[in-house]
């Protein structure tokens, strides 16, 4: 028996588990449709709506923040502490009771890339932003429904558009979609944000523990986790305040300046660079009320797409969030189970 046989036999074989396969498959599929984390690319469906069109126009015309104007983190911390105070002082909102849904409406636009290899071995690729209006209803068990309606594509460069034309203008997506969302197996069986501490120190420790070992770097991942918690999850005013306080303490956080969000609203941008992707991810705040307006990802120098610094490669614009008792019957009927 070799040395390694001794190690190996400490771990007896387990049989296959079809139930586990099905549960994990469902959770991964739900994640793929539900969690548009920053810098991910999503397939969206084109269709025209007024809000979507406005968002697309904003993406197309706003020259976004340069990649080199970031100021010291103290400025970012001030904005985040203001946001924390604003969140903490919000009038008490209703609790998400069993049987109720947190409804969130946003307009998202994430980079979608299609590519291939020609017969001569050279490769081709085009990238496009496909804005979509996204409406999601989630209950405390992290289950619910998603309704998406796509918008007009926004080309990241003329080269991308010409590549698409050269390949016969393939359809960039289908029609509106409705999806039934199942909870993740192995998770606590409830919306993850419900368990987040509202004490900033405790929350910092929780997020750091979750982020450590992540390939993006601990603090970058912590910032992503803050964004994830704020996105489509139910949080109390105290939890939201704590999330901003945690973000204010992250090494690398910076005030990226003033911009406009996807709906054309003026905004202050606070975020972090992600050297791995040569991009900067920011949260956008109303300069007066410090309410969270959305999030944005912009290209930095050396980005893989060769886009000008400041080009928006992804953004989400929050339009509405409230607690509702019902999901529209049309969405439930149309949902793919």
């Amino acid at each position, binding site marked *: 028996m070799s040395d390694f046989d001794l190690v190996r036999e*400490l771990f007896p074989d387990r049989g296959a588990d079809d139930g586990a396969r099905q549960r994990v498959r469902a959770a991964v599929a739900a994640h793929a449709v539900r969690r548009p984390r920053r810098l991910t690319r999503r397939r969206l469906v084109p269709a025209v709506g007024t809000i979507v069109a406005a968002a697309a126009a904003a993406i197309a015309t706003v020259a976004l923040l340069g990649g080199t104007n970031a100021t010291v983190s103290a400025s970012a911390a001030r904005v985040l502490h203001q946001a924390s105070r604003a969140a903490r002082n919000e009038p008490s909102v209703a609790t998400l009771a069993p049987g109720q849904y947190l409804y969130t409406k946003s307009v998202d636009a994430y980079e979608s890339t299609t590519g291939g290899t020609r017969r001569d071995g050279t490769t081709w690729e085009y990238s496009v932003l496909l804005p979509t209006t996204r409406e999601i209803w989630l209950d405390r068990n992290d289950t619910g429904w998603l309704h998406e309606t796509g918008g007009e594509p926004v080309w990241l460069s003329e080269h991308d558009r010409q590549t698409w034309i050269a390949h016969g203008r393939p359809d960039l997506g289908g029609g509106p979609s409705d999806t039934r969302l199942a909870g993740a197996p192995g998770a606590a069986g409830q919306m993850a944000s419900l368990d987040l501490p509202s004490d900033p120190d405790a929350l910092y420790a929780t997020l750091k523990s979750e982020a450590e070992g992540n390939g993006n770097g601990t603090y970058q991942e912590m910032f992503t986790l803050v964004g994830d918690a704020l996105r489509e999850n139910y949080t109390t005013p105290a939890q939201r305040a704590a999330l901003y306080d945690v973000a204010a303490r992250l090494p690398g956080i910076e005030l990226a300046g003033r911009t406009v969000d996807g709906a054309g609203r003026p905004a202050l941008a606070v975020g972090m660079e992600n050297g791995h992707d040569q991009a900067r991810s920011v949260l956008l705040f109303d300069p007066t009320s410090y309410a969270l307006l959305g999030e944005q990802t912009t290209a930095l120098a050396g980005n893989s797409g060769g886009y000008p610094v400041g080009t928006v490669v992804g953004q989400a614009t929050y339009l509405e969030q409230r607690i509702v008792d019902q999901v529209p019957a049309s969405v439930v009927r149309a949902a793919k189970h």
Partner: protein
Amino acid sequence: MVSMVNGSSAHRTVSDGRLMQRSLDDPRAYGAIFERHFDTLFGYAARRVGPQLAEEIVTETFTQAFDRRRAFDFDRDDAAPWLFGIAANLLRRHWRTERRRLAAYARSTERSASHPDEVPRTDVLAALDTLSGNEREALFLFAVADLSYEEIAVALAVPVGTVRSRLARGRERVRRVVGEGPLTRPSSSDGKESFNV
């Protein structure tokens, strides 16, 4: 629910790298990655931490991989080492849980052991305790997951030489328990390779 492309075909006509690249535009293509690698990853995780925790870890492995797939080298044919690397990072956090399971297993099997000269599993476990997390992960990927040096290097994002030294250290600790002997792959592997450290 998003339906994912079924990739369980016995003949892989499309590389994992190509599927990963395609999934940037069409997330359904990621389904084939899932179908190709679920059994291997789940089997490995279940052997280490039991089926219940394995389900969580493999779910997290595939969701993290989905979020980070843009960083995958699309020229690679096989995503398994990369996926094992993500799983290894997650498993590393559960060493205390894993150790408790191993200790219980070692004690239960030793009570019924019929060979008095058999190396006590509790001693092997004690040897593993002396290793760092990185050394243990390399050892488990080699001895339990049957990955090659090169695949472990990809999984742990370290040079092959580092894999070699980590495995040498792991072997040295275990050898102190069992005495000197040739270093070979576990006997139940395909037997195509043997390694000298």
